[in-house]
């Protein structure tokens, strides 16, 4: 199945209650698939094409505030528009699933794949101190699995979860194994607006605290939650790391190309491994730190001008050399140039 379509099917099967979206290349297949496959008939899931990305994310806010499994998807320029709503959702501590099928920027940029929204997804995007849980699939299968996982994490932590995909993953066809249809669940959460219960105070959803003391308390609570997420939810894949003298790191589609470069390097006798973060937040800080004691250098390969590399450097804290190789603006690196970069920047550098 095509990545975007598989993700849409996974949303129906995950028992999602509502999808609100707005068309943008290269992710429009998500809403097209949903509209064509009548989830309303299959599970009762609501699908609505909003008038804008701004409206879509605020519809998610409304539905999520009712304790429902709500989601939206978009691509980079559309994700920028959603940032206001995402900040409110994070502040009001609502669970929801966001999907960003990243394309090249800045501005209108290009419709070609990119990873240049790493900072936006991982470091905030909207205003205020908040974090999204960010999942980075490298395969269509992971796109499917992360929909289910994403909703689980969103409700576990009452926090927005983002699947950061890109134009390659969204558009490519791969074999996938779909999980069985899960039932939609009638929400029964204390925090949700379900209608006021007699003899109980009304519930309200808000991200506003006019008193600074109260707003600081909210922030303390959020930070404590983020520490908990960092402790429990880090995911990564390690390949050929046991004997590695050098390390590649890359996420998403770029990790697949980098893996090929790793195989080429191994064939030449260069002992290089690959560490692929599957969660961009929480970041595998400890794993990088451990490997930094072992390897002589790390090459971070990204389809951007150097974003995740900053987190890698913070993680190893100067223990080993960390360099970046990137193609951007919609360009995709090839394994030859990645291997070349390893030899030039790390081994020969």
């Amino acid at each position, binding site marked *: 199945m095509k990545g975007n379509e598989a993700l849409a099917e996974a949303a129906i099967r995950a028992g999602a209650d509502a999808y609100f979206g707005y068309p943008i290349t290269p992710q429009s297949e998500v809403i097209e698939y949903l509209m064509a496959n009548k989830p309303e008939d299959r599970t009762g899931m609501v699908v609505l094409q909003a008038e804008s990305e701004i409206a879509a994310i605020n519809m998610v806010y409304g539905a999520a505030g009712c304790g429902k499994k709500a989601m939206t998807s978009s691509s980079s320029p559309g994700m920028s528009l959603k940032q206001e*709503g995402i900040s409110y959702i994070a502040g009001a501590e609502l669970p929801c699933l966001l999907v960003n099928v990243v394309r090249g920027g800045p501005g209108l940029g290009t419709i070609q794949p990119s990873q240049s929204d790493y900072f936006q997804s991982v470091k905030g995007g909207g205003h205020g101190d908040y974090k999204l849980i960010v999942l980075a699939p490298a395969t269509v299968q992971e796109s499917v699995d992360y929909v289910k996982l994403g909703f689980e994490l969103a409700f576990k932590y009452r926090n927005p979860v983002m699947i950061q995909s890109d134009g390659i993953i969204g558009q490519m066809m791969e074999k996938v194994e779909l999980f069985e249809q899960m039932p939609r669940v009638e929400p029964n959460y204390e925090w949700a607006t379900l209608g006021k219960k007699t003899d109980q105070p009304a519930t309200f959803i808000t991200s506003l605290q006019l008193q600074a003391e109260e707003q600081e308390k909210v922030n303390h609570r959020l930070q404590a939650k983020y520490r908990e997420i960092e402790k429990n939810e880090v995911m990564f894949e390690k390949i050929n790391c046991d004997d590695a003298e050098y390390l590649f790191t890359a996420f998403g589609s770029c990790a697949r190309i980098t893996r090929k470069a790793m195989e080429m390097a191994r064939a030449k006798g260069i002992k290089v491994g690959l560490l692929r973060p599957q969660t961009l937040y929480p970041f595998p800080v400890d794993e990088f730190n451990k490997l930094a004691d072992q390897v002589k250098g790390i090459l971070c390969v990204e389809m951007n001008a150097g974003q995740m590399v900053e987190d890698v450097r913070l993680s190893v804290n100067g223990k080993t050399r960390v360099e970046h190789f990137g193609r951007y603006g919609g360009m995709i690196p090839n394994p030859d140039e990645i291997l070349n970069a390893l030899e030039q920047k790390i081994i020969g550098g």
Partner: protein
Amino acid sequence: MSENLIKPENLVYQKTEALTDRVMHYCPGCGHGTAHRILAEVIQEMGIMDQTIGVAPVGCSVLAYYYFNVDMQEAAHGRAPAVATGIKRVFPEKFVFTYQGDGDLAAIGTAETIHAINRGENILIVFVNNGIYGMTGGQMAPTTLVGMKSSTSPFGRDTKTMGSPLKITELIAQLPGAYFVTRQAVHKPGNVRKAKKAIRKALEYQKLDKGTCFVEIVSNCPSNWKMTPVQSNKWMEENMFPYYPLGDIKVPEDN
């Protein structure tokens, strides 16, 4: 003599349970309080306090969720109709309302307002129009009258550079999704009674899944108009009502 009248059996009017006991932060004489109260009264009288979900805006009524004794969500500025859409689509059987001011509904939230109504979302939109941004200290609103002074139109609204006051209610009344559209006021007993009836009608229509009902309440802003409440109500009658005439703008054809 009069004290013996104060007995439960003689009670003819008291604060509705659909309002909390919190003292509202609104300035003395502000129409928001009355608008809140009549909406709350209708909710109580219809017996739907447990089935109602409200959406508060950004503006003076940003804290409305402290005052309505029903479940509420606080929306980002202008986004209340989108938030209400999200709620109503997943809970079609609940009663959903937004409560929005003129800046929220007719400036930053114009797209959300028009499109929610154009989809005929089965919600009630209460629109309080006092022609000014109250919370931020009296800046010009989309509905500020021509020549009216505000902190960002200190020499009066000049239509050449600032545009004309927006009659958003007439505009949205043209949309097929708008089922019942009316403009009311809450400064005098007769107006309050009419406005309350309009809100009642709107929520009854919602029960029948008729589409969007839109109740504008032309109101005052004594603090930012720099008048006493009583003066502001008079000024409103003399200046606001000629431009924003009271009455039904769209009534259901099948009635």
